[in-house]
């Protein structure tokens, strides 16, 4: 007799009030529950206000000030933003970052999709998944240092191989045109397995019988990939893209331990430029203005991306 009621409860647990036994009791229960809830949320709320909300508001304020950390912030209106519009290094940083994001995301998405499909069609093995994920577990700093060594002009194994097949050695971190692709490659190496596993999770949601039907109709693997996998995976891919693009816009660690912005600003990405401005040159006001610009840029980007890819609509129904 109670079965239908409980099923309905399970379906929407969030909206179910505590079971009423008597009006008075219900009132007491609700009150007690509300007090308990606020107590439970209190530590997180304090953390949120102190280290997310307050800094977001003061960051906004700093962006309108001249602030060197030693003296109180001095309100200067839109000066920082005017400076930003006329700062060739800011535009250079945006360009560098975009170039990085383009290479990084392009390569990473294609490779991750390939790996995910291979895994789905070949194996469920935890070992394979574990190996593919391995680079994601180590710190950015470590990935950067290992590849910094492997890409070394004189002692790096990559240049040994290049030399071995009779080509000219490449100064991967020392030449302007190579530095960004190299940094992008390192981050593709670190993240492609993780992204592949995200896509893999999405692939698992595609019903097996769709493929079985496709196989009976005589569809080739390539055909099935184009007409089944890709369309059904679209919402997942869209989400993955939004997350990875916003994430890769914020590259810092790899640059910090390898090129530090050089050669000649060719790897001075936006996050590194902001960091440099604020923490090396103590220009916190200008740094905040650039950070806000980055924030707005990312928000617009995310919005447009979600619109273009219709991420919220699933073809699976």
């Amino acid at each position, binding site marked *: 007799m109670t079965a239908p009621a409980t099923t309905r409860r*399970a379906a929407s647990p969030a909206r179910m009030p505590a079971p009423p036994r008597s009006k008075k009791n219900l009132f007491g229960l609700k009150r007690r529950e509300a007090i308990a*809830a606020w107590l439970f949320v209190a530590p997180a709320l304090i953390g949120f206000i102190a280290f997310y909300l307050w800094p977001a508001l003061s960051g906004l304020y700093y962006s309108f000030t001249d602030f060197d950390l030693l003296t109180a912030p001095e309100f200067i209106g839109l000066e920082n933003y005017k400076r930003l519009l006329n700062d060739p290094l800011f535009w250079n940083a945006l360009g560098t970052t975009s170039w990085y994001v383009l290479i990084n995301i392009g390569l990473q998405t294609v490779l991750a999709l390939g790996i995910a499909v291979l895994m789905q069609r070949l194996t469920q093995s*935890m070992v394979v998944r574990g190996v593919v994920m391995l680079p994601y577990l180590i710190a950015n*700093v470590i990935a950067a240092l*290992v590849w910094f060594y492997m890409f070394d002009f004189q002692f790096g194994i990559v240049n040994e191989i290049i030399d071995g097949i009779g080509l000219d050695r490449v100064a991967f971190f020392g030449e302007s045109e190579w530095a960004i692709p190299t940094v992008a490659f390192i981050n593709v*190496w670190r993240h492609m397995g993780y992204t592949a596993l995200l896509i893999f999770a999405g692939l698992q949601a595609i019903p097996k019988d769709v493929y079985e039907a496709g196989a009976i109709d005589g569809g080739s693997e390539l055909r099935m990939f184009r007409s089944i996998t890709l369309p059904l995976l679209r919402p997942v891919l869209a989400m993955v893209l939004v997350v990875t693009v*916003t994430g890769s816009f914020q590259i810092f660690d790899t640059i910090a331990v390898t090129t530090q912005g050089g050669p000649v600003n060719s790897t001075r990405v936006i996050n590194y430029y902001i960091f440099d401005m604020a923490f090396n040159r103590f220009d916190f006001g200008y740094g905040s203005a650039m*950070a806000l610009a980055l924030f707005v840029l990312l928000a617009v980007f995310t919005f447009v991306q979600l619109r273009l890819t219709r991420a919220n609509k699933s073809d699976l129904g």
Partner: protein
Amino acid sequence: MTTIINAPAVTDPQELTRPRRPGRRAKPKFTVGRTLAWVALGGVMLITLIPFYWMLRTSFSTSTSLGSDPGSLLPVDFTFGAYERVLGLATPAEALAEGGSGASINFWAYLRNSLIVATVTTIGQVLFCSMAAYAFARLQWRGRDLVFSTFIAALMVPPIFTTIPNFVTIRELGLLNTYAGIILPTLLMTPFAIFFLRQFFLGISREVEEAAIIDGAGPLRRFFQVILPLGSAPIATLAILTYITSWNEYFWPQLVGREEEVRVLTVALGVFRSQTPQGGPDWAGLMAATLIAALPILIMFVFLGRRVINSIGYSGVK
């Protein structure tokens, strides 16, 4: 904006620990296409693993000899010298002879600092976030949805934007170069942790909690006796993810914890790299250090791999 990929589909918190079901499909036939696909996957795994091997191979080499045979697949002039150097067991003279900088390295202190920072961060964050997630998922209170969506909105804000004011806060509190300064910003909450746990708590069957209510259990007892045991799998997963993230963090610790006494391993690696001699860098020492710094996470992965791997499909947030 939501960054869920397929989290809502998970209604069973036990899902994470359940062993994978045996393959239902019959063993596929051998074909050229399948072989090529395996070769491709093998290639991917090789590229993934080579840098790890290269760290190992280099760490057992002598830095001064590495230059003579940079392409050798085996260690050049096999030695434990790099590890002795990194662990502070070698004298400066020995270190210099093998290509080290001769500067003292306080490895054990950095390891201790990393352990303290990652452990305290994880315990605090997981405890406070599971409490908050419980309130968001299971309790009735006015303002709940508003507070929750404000928390989630913070996922959108790029960290660098809040980093600058947070640095000012930590500095004004006089907490630069203290553990507290490194830990505080992530001790009480991250939006991701709350979001992650709430998804699971929403899925826990309501009846179990109702039974406890009828027994007269208050929210506190329900949290500790019903939710925590039932949610132990996702909580453990979150703890592991938090530990890894915290262990690998570089940006914030290098801003507020540069001094020796609170310097964590990632920051120490950055310093070590900049100290290494410019002409003939101490690659062996650097690789030994990176390997040791990565080791705790790699060991953890060997034991808890399945849980970490499975967590990915359920989160979809970085």
